[in-house]
């Protein structure tokens, strides 16, 4: 079942001599449960691609369809709510809310929906992340690896159609990087979660189902890595 459909996505910054084409006619499709990695050098356009797919940045042209719904045909407010419910984000610098504890950070998208957090789901996620004993800790009381696990928990909480991870191990040491990757793989396998991860670490990409490369804004599919 096709979850993500990216059609002829273009993103241009600046004008005249300062014009930079960050993405050029990028097209991409992801199936449900697929874990894909986008690799590329710094400045190749991979983060721009992720931001456009997540609706954080407006493409110059092209379409992003998530479960058949065109992200940029929606109004800003509608897109925000759609993103909250259907897209999970994992950032390199975690982006946790410093004033919320682990449990509140994980449940943050639900709290923004003014819903009472589903306690069973929270417990399940905490257990998967191995953070049950840290539920009342604030982000500042956690290690980098633990913070990133909380960020992954927040992304998983709403059972989104798609998780977008931007260099999720960029700020972590090798052991924590391995742990985080294991978590993402586990999420993909256990919850049939579709994940698109950006990394410049080819070794990490090896753990994914499929690898894509962005070079100067052009996407090429390097095919499956793991059956």
């Amino acid at each position, binding site marked *: 079942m096709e979850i993500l459909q990216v059609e002829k996505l273009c993103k241009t910054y600046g004008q005249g001599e300062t014009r930079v084409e960050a993405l050029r006619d990028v097209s991409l499709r992801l199936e449900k449960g697929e874990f894909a990695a986008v690799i590329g050098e710094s400045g190749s356009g991979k*983060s*721009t691609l992720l*931001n456009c797919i*997540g609706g*954080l*940045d407006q493409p110059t042209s092209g379409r992003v369809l998530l479960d058949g719904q065109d992200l940029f045909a929606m109004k*800003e*407010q509608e897109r*925000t*709510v759609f*993103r*909250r*419910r259907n897209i999970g*984000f994992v*950032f*390199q*610098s975690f*982006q*946790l*809310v*410093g*004033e*919320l*504890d682990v449990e*509140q950070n994980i449940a*943050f*998208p639900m*709290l*923004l929906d*003014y819903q009472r957090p589903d306690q069973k789901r929270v417990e399940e996620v905490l257990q998967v992340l191995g953070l049950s004993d840290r539920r*009342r800790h*604030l982000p*500042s009381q956690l290690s980098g690896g633990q913070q990133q696990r909380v960020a992954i928990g*927040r992304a998983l909480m709403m059972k989104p159609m798609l998780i977008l991870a*931007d260099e999720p191990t960029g*700020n972590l040491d090798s052991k924590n990087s391995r742990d985080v990757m294991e978590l993402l793989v586990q999420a993909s396998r256990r919850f049939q979660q579709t994940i698109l991860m950006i990394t410049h670490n080819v070794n990490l990409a090896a753990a994914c189902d499929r690898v894509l490369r962005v070079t100067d804004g052009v996407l090429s599919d390097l095919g499956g890595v793991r059956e």
Partner: protein
Amino acid sequence: MSVFCIVLSVLLVTAIFGMADMFLRSQKIQSYKTDGNWHANFQNISDTDAAMIAARPDVAAMSWYDAVNYKAEPTYSINGKTVAICGFDEDFLSDIYIDTALTEGHFPTGGQEAVLTQNAKETLGLRLGDTVTVNMPEGRTLPLAVCGFADNTAMMLRYDCVGVFLSTGQFRAIPWADAEGAAANPGMYYVQFTPYCNIQKAIADIQSQLQIPDAQVGQNVRLLGVMGQSGDPMMLCLYATAGVLFVLVLLAGIMMIASSLNSNVAQRTQFFGMLRCIGATPKQVIRLVRCEALSWCQFAIPLGVGIGVVLIWVLCAVLRALSPYFFAEMPVIAVSVPSIAAGVVVGLLTVLLAARAPARRAARVSPLTAVSGNADAAAPARHAVGAKRLHVDTALGIHHAMASRKNFALMVGSFALSIVLFLSFSALISFMDHAVTPLNPATPDLSIISADNTRSVRGGLLETLGENPAVARVYGRMFAFDVPAVTGGQAGTADLISYDAPQFRWAEKALLEGSVQETERGTDAVLTVYSPENPFRVGDTVTLDCNGASHTLRVTGMLSDSPFSSGNGFGDLICSEGTFRRLMGDGGYTVIDMQLTGRATDADVQAIRALAGEGVRFSDRRAGNAEATGAYLAFALFVYGFLALIALITVCNIINSLAMSVSAWMRQYGAMRAVGMGGHQLVRMVTAEAAAYAVAGSVAGCILGLPLHRFLFEKMVSFRWGDPWQAPLGALALIVAIVAVTSFAAVRGPAKRIRELSIADTISAE
């Protein structure tokens, strides 16, 4: 943002001090015009004592002064025109009573010469060199040659008399009768001290050296008060009040700048870390923060001072326009050196002092913060947000407000200080209401009064005057004095007064009970004026014996006060002109009053005087009215000016503070938007933060402001007039409403900025 804060606080200090300076200048001008430019007077002292006072180096000007018939009785006259006779030295006109300057001729040098007031020219047709004879009681006469003319005084015009000014020597040489008062003592010795002299000390010195008791010494309290030289207990209370207000204004300025610098430094931790990283010592970082703050001053202080000065110019222009008679002398381009100095000093000192703590904090930043991912993040939270009872956006907003205790205290402090300032300055309104009485709307500029208090002013004059373009409003009254009256079996007399339409309209505002219209329209209805002795009550009947005929009238209304009340016998009964004529027969008016248009000239007044004809008294109260109006307008303008300025500064401060506070959390807002926080939720979060400051600030403002208002009220009002303190609910509601509305309105700007912020840029900046 910090530059804006410095501009605001410098503007606050410059404008408030400048306004205070201009207020004192305007009061000084008023005082010179109404009371004269003298500081002390000594009664019943000898010429030797006077000479000793005059010889003092701290005495700038001095003059003897004495007067006869100052109450303008017709027993002293020139060609039937009442005169008041004054004797003084030449300095009195040139230096002391400067509003009455010599306009023509010279001061009497000896012999039988006199200076007359200007109105003698018009009313008596006198010219320089003419000889006049002053008729005095008991058939005495005083022949005089007119050697000069001087400006009219408000009192002379009001009582329609001519001033006859003699030299002290001449005045003393006249053989006054004992009853005239002038013979009994050598008069009053007026003294003006030199600038910068300690006047209270000088007066005490003179008293102790010449053994002059306190009862013989008078002081020009108002002038000394505005000069800061009064020893009057009331003035000392006012000085204490001014001192408190001064400190408050300074505190407000300091608080605004400190809060701004604090948040500015907090937002640039990474930059300071980077400086430390590349080898800057903590001392160098401190110096950098200070130099940076001082560099803002280069621009902010001149701008704040400039706006403050322009504001003062506008205020002076308004003052001149409102009361040209008094404030024509206020400078067009007024430069208040103390206010500019205060603005500059407060700006510089506050910036230096306020920069100390943030500079030390910046110097403590670890070089590591420059390279860690959390460089610009706010200080780690101490406890998690309680999002169970509140929505998470609201809870986060409140938490952001309180995240840093120091920032919260500074923000709440600056909100609270605005309220405290407003409440404190609002105490001046009560003081103004007591100290300066506005002109009664019924007060006439000119009056034509029957010379013998009968109805001798012809009725047709009212219509003629009504058509005169110089007359804005004309209204007449007929009086019947001591009319025999019986009410409730009690016999006595009452004064019957007729009102016309304008006077009935004013009476409505003083109505305590009953109806004015019934009296205005009816033929047997009267109003009465409250006094404890007045037996009339609404609903009573009163029987008047008018020219032998008995008429019964109903009392249909009770007025609290009447500007025309005489209060004889039982009291006053006011009826319509129709009723009056029915009871007392046809006849003219006793008094015709006029209010003139702003364009009316002296020539118009002379024409009206000529129209009035003989056998009537003419009263010109324009100068006195201008004094009263000028005093009220000047005071009101400054008091409301202070309040408006404080309100304006409050609005600007809140907008600026919230914008700064939001800037500190901008990164986090970006992340929140990425994970799905909507625009409305962002607005709610910032609103909650603003509300936290507004509520805490308002509570703190009330807790501090109300006792301070009470203290100032008791110093300024209770001390003098005995009024008990009452909570200033109106002012409190107004300033709290300003704080609340501004806080909520101020959210719009930052919320828009957050919405327009690129989420991708914010995230990637981390």
